[in-house]
């Protein structure tokens, strides 16, 4: 695969970030969620930001049509932020909508058109039933050839999992270990939808059974709990409930500025030194169904632009919409060789205190996955980790100066990867 070495006209830095609480909020609309994230962003800009100085908005949103009957959402959000008449654009690339919004913001600053750009994403999913969400997210598959075959979004990742199991000998336990790790991190993230470990969920169920005088489950550890189909029913085999990211309401945003003005906002900007985006066919047309070409291409582009290698990256947020996706993802970004993710999860290399901490935020699995908001929420976690502001989940013993986000859309037809530097 030939990757052209690309250069941006100007450097770009993140000087503020905000994330709403992730969860299920029946009385909040997309607008309310985005404002919540934006209010946190305003607080996060060390020397402050006047919203009137923001020159453009790129907004990621995936299924606003299904969830709120709302298209053309970007100018509506801009209106609530007081940004009229500045340009506002919605980017829709399924679960990488705000990852691509971030990329478009970077490109727009690099073009010389703007100095200060707001990028972000929002998704209000809990207005729909599980069936409704399955239908809505299913729109990201190939509507002509995948959905007629009955594939759902979890189903297509499950199919990927069966080829991965067949080719590399992965077992269901390996997927479970990804979920356990990410819940361990999410338990330390107050914004997370599931702000608790799987062990605590298990112990909670045992306590509840005791309290209610019901038969007491005999799970000895989390793996046994996750192997119990009553506790962890199949969604699309081999993906079970605890392999799947939840249905989430949430929003996130970042303030991007041209590198030369970054220091007027903060002493510790986070520079975006690499951006890559790629595309791939639907799963059935891919030469190798255990990898995502869009991610490999995006990663190579981002590494080439940043002038760094996978081994230089200290932490990453990786798109774990399903547990199989994290295993494939950490291989696609070159952290581990093909099939090597199995050993990595077995040996705890991707744990918060491991060699390559992955998803310190809790990942999509535990933090929640408001699809359109996920890309910029990943970057917001990197922002905190790089500035040493991640609180209880701050990676121990590492001064983070190079990090990466890996954000995938749909089953992998699109992916955006960004590399961040703290100087």
């Amino acid at each position: 695969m030939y990757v052209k070495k690309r250069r941006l006209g100007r450097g770009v830095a993140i000087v503020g970030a905000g994330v709403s609480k992730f969860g299920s909020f029946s009385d909040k609309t997309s607008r309310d969620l985005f404002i919540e994230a934006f209010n946190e962003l305003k607080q996060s800009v060390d020397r402050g930001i006047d919203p009137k100085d923001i020159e453009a908005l790129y907004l990621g949103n995936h299924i606003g049509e299904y969830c709120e009957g709302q298209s053309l959402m970007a100018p509506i959000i801009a209106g609530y932020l007081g940004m009229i008449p500045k340009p506002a654009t919605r980017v829709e690339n399924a679960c990488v909508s705000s990852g691509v919004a971030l990329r478009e913001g970077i490109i727009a600053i690099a073009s010389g058109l703007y100095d200060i750009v707001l990028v972000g994403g929002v998704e209000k999913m809990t207005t729909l039933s599980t069936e409704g969400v399955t239908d809505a997210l299913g729109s990201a598959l190939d509507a002509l050839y995948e959905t007629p075959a009955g594939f759902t979004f979890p189903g297509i990742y499950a199919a990927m999992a069966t080829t991965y199991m067949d080719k590399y000998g992965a077992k269901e336990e390996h997927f479970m270990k990804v979920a356990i790790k990410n819940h361990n991190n999410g338990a330390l993230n107050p914004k997370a939808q599931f702000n608790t470990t799987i062990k605590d969920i298990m112990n909670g169920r045992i306590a509840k059974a005791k309290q209610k005088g019901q038969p007491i489950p005999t799970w000895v550890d989390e793996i046994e709990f996750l192997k119990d189909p009553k506790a962890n029913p199949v969604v699309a085999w081999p993906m079970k409930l605890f392999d799947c990211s939840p249905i989430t309401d949430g929003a996130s945003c970042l303030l991007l500025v041209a590198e030369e003005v970054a220091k007027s906002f903060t002493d510790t900007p986070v520079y975006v030194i690499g951006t890559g985006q790629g595309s791939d066919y639907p799963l059935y047309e891919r030469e190798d169904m255990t990898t995502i070409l869009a991610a490999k291409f995006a990663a190579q582009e981002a590494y080439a632009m940043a002038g760094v290698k996978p081994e230089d990256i200290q932490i990453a947020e990786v798109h774990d919409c399903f547990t199989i996706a994290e295993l494939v993802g950490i291989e696609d970004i070159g952290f581990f060789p093909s099939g090597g993710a199995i050993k990595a999860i077995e040996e705890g290399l991707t744990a918060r205190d491991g060699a390559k901490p992955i998803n310190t935020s809790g990942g999509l699995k535990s933090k929640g996955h408001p699809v359109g908001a996920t890309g910029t929420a990943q970057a917001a976690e990197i922002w905190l980790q790089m500035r040493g502001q991640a609180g209880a989940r701050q990676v121990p013993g590492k001064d983070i100066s190079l990090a990466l986000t890996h954000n995938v859309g749909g089953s992998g037809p699109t992916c955006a990867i960004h590399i961040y530097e703290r100087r």
Partner: protein
Amino acid sequence: MVSQKEFTDAAFNQLLGEGKLMASRCKKCGALHLPPKPICVNCQEGNMEWTILKGKGKLAAFTTIAVGLPRMIQEGYGRDNPYCSGIVELEEGPRISARILDVDARNPQKLKVGMPLVVDFLERGEGENKRTLLAFKPV
């Protein structure tokens, strides 16, 4: 006259309705495109012809789905009655997504990547909404 149809989804589906699984083949480089494409992805040429596939292949990837699409729920599937969707690699090379029939979707561990399959055609809907879906089943 199959060979005169445009290389569209509409034509592909009409052919499925006639019990034919057909791909488009690039006359220049010979690449097979399933579902049919009007421009060759391999050599960018737009000179294609229809070619019929034997309908034999093997299971390349699969899942058994308990939380299904609305249309599958309407067919009676659900948490207690999962269905199987798969990706089939045909003898001629291309792969395609399809319903997998006549397998025990409650015991997915018994299904194996590589198992031989043969094409089937599944009719759904009535009148104007009648549609033939691509399916495969064990040999």
